[in-house]
């Protein structure tokens, strides 16, 4: 039997140029309605003038291991899939919005058709052995899909010896997205 998957992402902000190709690939792959997004790009500038540093990062649902949206969902619509991702079962979602209130990352929205929607880590593509739409289109290889149950991967090795963080780790959600900080760039 094949080993169970545990998908996540390693996002290298050193090479992200903030082109938003991931956002548009996602919109077209997942028919995200106009005026909504499942992933987005954040540009953060930090420091004291004139010594400023900037980081671009592509963000999306964190596919938490301990996801508050799953904890609070009253109908089981939000659930953990067997491949380690967090999914929404549209045919059980009442649109009560408890998961939106529970998510510390504001990653979810109410689809105009009445159910709650968010990044599915392109589960339909993962199931066919493909990469997610955003990963496949990223021109700088900033986005990397990883299976944490397969330790011998290039993407995981990418994090070795670098400053890596996860967002709002103190929320106790154990997010599955890792960011390689732009502070690893030479000269920062």
């Amino acid at each position, binding site marked *: 039997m094949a080993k169970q998957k545990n998908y996540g992402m390693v996002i290298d902000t050193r090479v992200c140029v903030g082109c938003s190709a991931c956002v548009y690939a996602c919109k077209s792959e997942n028919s995200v309605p106009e005026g*909504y*997004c499942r992933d987005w790009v954040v540009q953060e500038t*930090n420091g004291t003038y004139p010594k400023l540093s900037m980081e671009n990062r592509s963000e999306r649902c964190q596919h938490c291991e301990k996801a508050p949206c799953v904890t609070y969902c009253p*109908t089981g619509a939000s659930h953990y899939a067997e491949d380690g991702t967090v999914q929404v079962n549209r045919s059980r979602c009442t*649109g*009560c919005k408890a998961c939106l*209130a529970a998510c510390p990352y504001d990653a979810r929205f109410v689809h105009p058709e009445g159910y709650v929607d968010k990044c599915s880590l392109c589960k339909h593509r993962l199931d066919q052995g493909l990469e997610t739409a955003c990963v496949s289109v990223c021109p700088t290889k900033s986005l990397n899909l990883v299976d944490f149950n397969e330790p011998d991967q290039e993407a995981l090795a990418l994090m070795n010896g670098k400053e890596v963080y996860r967002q709002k780790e103190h929320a106790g959600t154990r997010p599955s997205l890792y960011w390689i900080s732009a502070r690893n760039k030479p000269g920062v």
Partner: protein
Amino acid sequence: MTETATEIISTKINPNVIPHLHIWEWHIPLYLFLGGIAGGLLVITSIMIILKRKFGIGPKDEGDGCPCLAVRIGSILSPVLLGLGMLFLFLDLAHPLYVWAFYTTIQPTSPMSAGSWILIAFFPLAVLQAMLVNKKFLRERNIGIVNKLIDWTENHLTLVALINSQIGVGIGIYTGILLSFFYARPLWSSSILGMLFLVSGISSAAALMMLFAPNEEKPVYSKIDANALWIELVVVGLFVLGGITGPANNSGAMMHLIAGDYQMAGMSYMLWFWGIFVALGLVIPLVLEFLEGAGVHIRFPLIAPVLVLVGGLVLRFLIVFAGQTYHTFM
């Protein structure tokens, strides 16, 4: 020293989430208010029934086993108001046709799942109590099945009331617990919010009973209300203190509520909180009811209960809105 700057530019665009969460609008605070009153009415009427039956305390019964007028009307209003509240809850669903999904599963970690089952558990016994305390009038109607139900259960009214007093507390406290479990919204993330909504529900219910109780019964409910009000004042104090003495998440959110200039219906949160909720909704009615209890007759006796009801409604709107206009967990 030059300030260290952080500037964030984001392309996140989802409406109702960015720039701040406003997923729950007027339906939810209205439901929380009606649910709180329904729970409070069930608690008060049940305790009044038990006190009368077991200890002979309270206003005189109507005869034929029917309690006083306020208890009879309160017992009817409790399920009616909760039903109305659940209607607003239903209207808030983005996908109302899937409402059945609440009742084909039990999600032990979800307060909303627990709540939807408590709501269902509430109705049979609350309706039974409303029927039993009004049995004199129901018997006149002579409906076969209703007569049978009353025949089976009329000797157990005290037991029904005893269970209902517990379910009433469950409903009242649940309306606050529902919000308090969302730790991603730091204003709501307070374990005393359930207690606050429970005492507020009880004081609002006593105020409502004061409105329709005949004159000779009014002092009873005025006393219940006054007691609930000062407990509520203490709990509000603890809620505020717990917020401002907490970590940056919680103190920021509490300051957003108690000193914030963010507007609700054209007035800042700070004015709503201190002016309308605390001063008009708690302190003034408490003083009026204290004076009334001390024998100083006030010319407009309806002022205190109306203010309490307004305060209870404003509390729910404020907490639900301010919890969503403050940014998420840092």
